[in-house]
């Protein structure tokens, strides 16, 4: 095998997909290196799940090429299926079975053999803290337990590439942290992870690279730090009692955007104490009276608005 392809776990070129007249994926290109985490970030309906469905051989794309571990998903789906694992909103566990039976079923379908299968099932029950619940029907499990079992079922066959579709959606903070830790352990073992999420924090924490999907296009792609530089940061908002004060403040802060109706001024900020101090210093030097001061940090909506609206105008303030 040639080294350049063996280093790339997932390669997508010009992937397109429509459902009827609705274009869901409109020419996606991306590469995920082996042993790294790629997070696909996007709002509901951005096409994240469709992307995972195509990459995991569930459905086929309309155009473009997808290679998983060097195998074309359209031409060698079984070769792809042999190396991947999928855990997601659309993939499920059997509620009528116990946790152990679900795992045993997966072990049988991975053809592990009786004793090796039993050993692997016991290992995973232990690792995912499901030993006590192993004999209970999954229908009685909590959301977090279900998600753990789901991931354990995916790991039965030791997949080299794992797709996680919104792995922490609907989980409480503790379960979310546990899931993050598990993902970290998998990556430490050299597994490649492709995950989708709506949470900026999650992508920031886990991913080596992040792709932002919006309206079927990858509107930004890079390391978390690269992306943060692309995304306009938060701002400090100053409210004033009158138009005269606003005018003086606007002269004092060159790059700020003003709202004459609301009598507010928005000053770009990285959210740090230093930038706040600089603003306060300048207000004091100019003897400018401020009614109210507030910090605005960007949420995911702001990130999308800024990335999709005017990508070449970096000074544009969010909203």
């Amino acid at each position, binding site marked *: 095998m040639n080294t350049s392809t063996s280093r790339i776990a997932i390669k997508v070129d010009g992937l397109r997909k429509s459902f009827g007249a609705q274009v869901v994926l409109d020419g996606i290109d991306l590469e995920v290196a082996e042993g790294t985490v790629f997070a696909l970030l996007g709002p509901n309906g951005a096409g994240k799940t469709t992307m995972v469905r195509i990459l995991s051989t569930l459905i086929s794309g309309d155009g473009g090429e997808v290679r998983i571990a060097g195998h074309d998903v359209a031409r060698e789906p079984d070769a792809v299926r042999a190396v991947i694992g999928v855990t997601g909103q659309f*993939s*499920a566990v059997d509620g009528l079975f116990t946790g152990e039976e679900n795992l045993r079923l997966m072990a*049988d379908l991975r053809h592990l053999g009786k004793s090796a299968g039993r050993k692997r099932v016991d290992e995973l029950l232990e690792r995912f803290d499901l030993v006590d619940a192993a004999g209970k029907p999954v229908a009685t499990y909590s959301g977090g337990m279900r998600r753990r079992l789901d991931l354990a079922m995916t790991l039965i066959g030791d997949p080299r590439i794992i797709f996680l579709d919104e792995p922490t959606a609907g989980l409480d903070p503790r379960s979310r942290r546990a899931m993050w830790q598990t993902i970290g352990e998998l990556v430490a073992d050299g597994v490649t992870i492709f995950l989708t999420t709506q949470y900026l924090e999650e992508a920031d924490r886990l991913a080596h690279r992040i792709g932002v999907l919006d309206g079927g296009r990858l509107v930004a792609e890079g390391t978390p730090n690269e992306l943060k530089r692309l995304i306009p940061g938060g701002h400090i908002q100053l409210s004033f009692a009158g138009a005269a004060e606003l005018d003086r403040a606007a002269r004092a802060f060159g790059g700020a955007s003003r709202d004459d109706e609301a009598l507010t001024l928005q000053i770009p900020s990285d959210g740090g104490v230093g930038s706040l101090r600089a603003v306060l210093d300048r207000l004091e030097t100019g003897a400018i009276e401020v009614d109210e001061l507030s910090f605005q940090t960007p949420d995911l909506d702001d990130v999308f608005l800024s990335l999709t609206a005017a990508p070449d105008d970096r000074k544009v303030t969010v909203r």
Partner: protein
Amino acid sequence: MTAYPLVVADSATMLRRNLRRMRRYPSLTVFIAGFPVVFLLLFVYVFGGTLGAGLGPSGGGRAEYLAYVVPGILLITVAGAAQGTAISVAMDKNEGIFARFRTMDIARASVLGGHVVGSVIQSMLALAIVTVVAVLIGFRSTTGPVAWTAAAGLLVLTAFAVSWLSVALGMAAQSVETASNLPMFLILLPFLSSGFVPTESMPGPLAWFAEHQPFTPLIETVRGLLEGTPIGDDGVIAVGWCVAISLVSYVWARRLYDRDPAA
């Protein structure tokens, strides 16, 4: 390639899964066997006296009607199992269990095949229960073991065809509720056949339909094999229907299984 043993191994795994689900959810099997038993008792003890008197020129009574209706009840047992199969297939589809299987390197035929074989076994269990009840209330076959084996074989073949059809219906249904309603026509069809009254007693167009739908040759063949009435070409037609329904349903179900689940 080791494709053949894998298909066998995966199908066995899927069959074990479906049999375990049946054990976990026994009320379905009880219902599948229970409703034809209720029909049998209803038709023999409530309607049987009158319907028996109307059988043929010589007339008859409850005992004659019991002999007449048993083949129809056996076929309605097989048809009734379709509902349970369609429901469990639709559950697997809607809960995303098929989606998980489809991303795994397992023989695709095994997933639906496991449902079909499980469903045939479920039908056989129900048929055994119905047969025991029929014998207990006085049904006696006038033929011998060879004919009984042939009748059992035809019922298995019918169960196979109905199972593939119900797997396809379960795949086609958008919800579990639809999946439970779609196979209702299979339970109605035996009534519009020679199962409960001779087709000659029906009005023209209905009689024509009854004579040409699959259940009539199936019932006539089972009747011939159990009671020695003439079978004629009904046997060939019955087997032909089973093969045709199995084939068409298999192709349909496979296409639905391979199709984009989001479309």
